[in-house]
């Protein structure tokens, strides 16, 4: 697809271009997301609105980047184009963890419980779907389905035991929503730092992602420690997924849509896909969140952003299943 050599210069140029696109979209979202700023009566009100929009843009960026990176990593290492933190149940596990932290402890433990939920889910999926170290593609997706069903039931159980006021909260949050009601800037900073660290880490693992995507034996023969790469990547992907769920609930299909759009546009090279996924995931979710804010003008209520990503993601999943997956499995 791209016969040009990948040099530091072209690498930094492409990162700069993606970062520039993301920054422009953020600027548009802050200035034009919702009510018109020039109709505001006071300066304080304008500043309040800008701060709240900036918060939403940052949350959307962090969560979008985290989910997009996690999806890319799962697809590469599980060698399954349909792997995504939401489809596999990793987001669901994190959601159960976060909800339990709200019931039993206080809000402080939410990211931690999210990590635990995500990592436990990855462990379960991997243990169930692999046979002699090889992961069966269909078994993996079926495992994701039943794991998701279990978490849905467990969350429903918790939901039915808590007070009715919280119940509505949980239902809204479970759809994946970016709320600006109680901004928690330190949580955004923490999750953001973690996501940036994961992005940088994955940039150094991208060479290995390329080789594992071609074949595990090939990767091993070309010097990759496949088991170690898998462990490190899964833990990192689980951490950022858990953290993003603690921030904005389980937003689905971002990790499926973003990496695949990028693959179609720029080919299968993970050295390019990792930085692109980071910024494109952020851009994508900022745009989706902006769309929910514009829909607010229609109905008076802001729909959760996860509604939009799911409605875009499900047709996309079916397309991948019918077209791209078929091609991949036929040749195998």
């Amino acid at each position: 697809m791209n016969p040009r050599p990948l040099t530091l210069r072209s690498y930094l140029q492409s990162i700069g271009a993606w970062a520039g696109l993301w920054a422009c979209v953020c600027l548009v979202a802050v200035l034009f997301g919702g009510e018109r700023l020039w109709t505001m009566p006071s300066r304080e009100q304008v500043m309040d609105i800008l701060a709240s929009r900036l918060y939403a843009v940052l949350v959307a960026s962090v969560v979008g980047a985290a989910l997009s990176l996690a999806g890319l990593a799962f697809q590469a290492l599980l060698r399954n184009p349909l792997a995504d933190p939401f489809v596999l149940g990793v987001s669901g596990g994190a959601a159960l963890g976060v909800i339990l932290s709200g019931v039993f402890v206080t809000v402080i433990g939410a990211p931690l419980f999210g990590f635990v939920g995500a990592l436990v889910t990855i462990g379960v999926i991997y243990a169930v779907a692999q046979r002699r170290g090889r992961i069966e593609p269909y078994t993996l997706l079926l495992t994701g389905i039943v794991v998701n069903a279990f978490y849905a039931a467990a969350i429903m159980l918790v939901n039915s035991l808590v007070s009715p006021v919280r119940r509505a909260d949980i239902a809204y949050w479970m759809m994946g929503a970016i709320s600006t009601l109680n901004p928690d800037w330190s949580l955004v900073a923490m999750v953001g730092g973690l996501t940036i660290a994961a992005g940088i880490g994955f940039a150094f693992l991208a060479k290995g992602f390329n080789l594992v995507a071609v074949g595990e034996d090939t990767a091993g023969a070309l010097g990759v420690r496949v088991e170690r790469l898998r462990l490190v990547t899964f833990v990192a992907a689980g951490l950022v997924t858990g953290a993003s769920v603690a921030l904005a609930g389980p937003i689905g299909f971002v990790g499926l849509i973003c990496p695949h759009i990028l693959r179609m546009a720029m080919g299968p090279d993970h050295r390019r896909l990792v930085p692109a996924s980071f910024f494109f995931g952020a851009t994508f979710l900022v745009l989706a969140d902006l769309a929910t804010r514009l829909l607010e003008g229609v109905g008076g209520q802001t729909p959760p952003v996860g509604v939009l990503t799911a409605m875009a993601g499900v047709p996309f999943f079916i397309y991948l299943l019918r077209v791209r997956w078929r091609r991949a499995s036929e040749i195998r």
Partner: protein
Amino acid sequence: MATGIRNPVTADLPLAAFPYLAVRGVGFAYRRDAPVLRDLSFDVQRGRLANILGPNGSGKSTLLRILVGLLAPGSGEVRLGGALLADYPRAALARRVGYVPQETAQATGFTVLETVLLGRSPHTGALGFEVPGDWYAARQALHLTDTELFAERSLDELSGGERQRVIIARALAQEPELILLDEPTAFLDIKHQHTIYGLLRRLVREGGKTVLCVSHDVNLAAAYADDLILMDHGHVAAAGKPEEVLRAEILSPVYEMPIEVRKDKTTGRPYVMPRPQA
């Protein structure tokens, strides 16, 4: 040009004195009660095209996976250039041993050139940027395997024979001393089988490589290989030059059927003919 790689000092020594690849008493089992390899020993000399033969389930592919470092032997030892295989760091081994696995057909979306450049991974830095030397090695590998013409095409579009040559090119781009191939001619027609073996022979004669190949095809191996290693139930039944190994009294018990061995009048090499009972 021919045999230019043999060191004039060591060439006259008895061959057994300097094994490049030495397999000594190797045993391996996936499950404890079913050993796949049992007390397996053989040598491969530098600059030779060696071929492992044997019936289905005789442990050929498992042996190759041990030699490339993907599996650790349960017992015994493997030495490469005198040092224990287990002592090589993973990337250092990847710079010495190239591997062409059996499952080569994968839809990845990579072009032929990108696929071959993946072979440079053991040589590139942490972020995986290629330098001009890497591009040179990849181009040279494409040239050697006669795959330059489709360098920009997707690997998924190629025919089986073309794809196999590209995978061999990827192993060549690694610039290894030893190339291991698992059934490189399975699923290929006669012409492409000979293209691949002709290429392997050129790599040994002109490229200075050592090649160890696993194949089912006794006659193809007989026509091209310098040395044959015949495996049976996880150990070596016979090893040596084709005319030493391909003998009716050796082959018939291993393949459990009457086999006749004749001599090709043009090449002087043996060829085998199975004689199934009606």
